[in-house]
């Protein structure tokens, strides 16, 4: 039974479990993300934050539970009245809605910044080279790297690489953007330039954003909602002011005081 549009979450994780052998990374985790929402996912290392994004990008398979985008199962498909694991065609169709930026950028080293940004649009979306190039140049201008379009990644700084990676992800016109610790591998002095690009991205490009981050100040400033993950579960979720100012959970409180004290 289709739900009314307004109540339809963009992304829904329904009792999602991820196990590697005996190691439980996500433990029946449930969470909804509304359309256009900017969510920051925080928590101790090993709590499963990144795994949530990797499952959403279909880089890993869920052990149990269902993830849906716009109410449609991501990793499963309807079959004989029930749900069966998704086949390749279904995964490829669902992936068109999702984009991801990685901690280590993962730019294609044998291609220039521009080529990185037109590869997907031409090869996957079937865009003409002229159109893809025009759009990619717009995006590179948006991230402030128009003049670096012809450079290979080896000649770019970490901050520049990550900005190209953001442009590359946006070139695929995703509806959901996953940002996985995009500033963790960067030198402190270039973190600001990347954060500047992320600020307001969800409104400008009509995106739903899930961001795993250790930048607490930034998460507090730009998020609509902050989700604190602890041992594979949502320990607490709420508005940034509430999570950072008046957390209800003792674990959230401990985590935040440890993190804020450190840096």
């Amino acid at each position, binding site marked *: 039974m289709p739900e009314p549009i307004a109540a339809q979450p963009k992304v829904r994780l329904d009792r999602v479990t991820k196990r590697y052998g005996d190691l439980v990374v996500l433990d029946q985790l449930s969470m909804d993300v509304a359309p256009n929402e900017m969510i920051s996912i925080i928590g101790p290392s090993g709590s499963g934050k990144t795994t949530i994004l990797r499952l959403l*990008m*279909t*880089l890993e398979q869920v052990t149990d539970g269902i993830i849906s985008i716009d109410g449609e199962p991501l990793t499963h498909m309807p079959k004989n009245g029930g749900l069966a694991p998704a086949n390749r065609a279904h995964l*490829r169709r669902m*992936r*068109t809605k*999702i*984009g*991801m930026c*990685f901690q*280590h950028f*993962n*730019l*294609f*080293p*044998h*291609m*220039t910044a521009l080529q990185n940004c037109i*590869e*997907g649009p031409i*090869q*996957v979306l079937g865009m003409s080279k002229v159109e893809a190039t025009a759009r990619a140049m717009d995006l590179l201008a948006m991230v402030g790297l128009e003049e670096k379009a012809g450079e*290979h*990644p*080896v*000649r770019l700084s970490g901050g520049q690489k990550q900005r190209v990676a953001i442009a*590359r*992800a946006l070139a*695929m016109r995703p509806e959901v953007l996953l940002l996985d610790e995009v500033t963790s591998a960067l030198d402190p002095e270039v973190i600001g330039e990347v954060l500047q690009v992320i600020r307001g991205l969800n409104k400008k490009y009509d995106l739903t954003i899930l961001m795993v981050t250790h930048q607490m100040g930034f998460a507090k400033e730009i998020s609509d909602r902050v989700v604190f993950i602890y041992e594979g579960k949502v320990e607490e979720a709420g508005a940034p002011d509430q999570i950072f100012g008046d957390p209800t959970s003792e674990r959230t409180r401990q985590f935040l005081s440890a993190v804020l004290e450190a840096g």
Partner: protein
Amino acid sequence: MLDWRWDFAFEVLPRLLLATLNTLMAAGLGYGIALVVGLVFALAQRTRYRLVTAIARESVEFIRSTPLVLQIFFVFYVFPQFGIRLSPWTAGMIAIGLHYASYLSEVYRGGLESVPRGQWEACTALNLGTARTYFRIIVPQALPPALPGMGNYLVGIFKDTPMLSVIGVAELMHTANAIGSESYRFLETYTMVGLLFLLISLPAAAGLRAFEAWVRRAFGLSR
């Protein structure tokens, strides 16, 4: 005393040069086969189908663990018993091509494994299909680290072509043996065969190194 006769050396030189062409052709053809079949072996070992993977891996192991000269004899003398009658050239190309394919498949495998996992994940995130992922993203990055190994085996196959003389392929060694048995003079003939091999191997090795450097620059992998 060393009995070197220049007149004899010059007399047999044209025959040796002609045979050199055969040697180069054998090396080139054999290497061409090895490049293609080696890629098939390497990719077959990466499929999701366990049986295909197992067959490819065992074939490579088997070929690498037995001598080339035995494989040449086997294709030429044993295949006819199964009704497969091949000319020396065909048999030789199959044997040497498969032999080097098994080595090259390991070089390819190493190259493919040198591409970081993040590159595959970026391809998934951009929704690229399997073929595009391989041929536009992974192989161009796997190639530069594989080139030194590929170059070694190109020189290797060239130096192994004399083995084809055992089934009568008229390459350099075979021709040199023929000259020797006609004239009973071996010094000039074998010396010149050695020099011819050297004259080709050394510039080829230098050329391959230059090519590697060029590929790295062309692919933007070094500044």
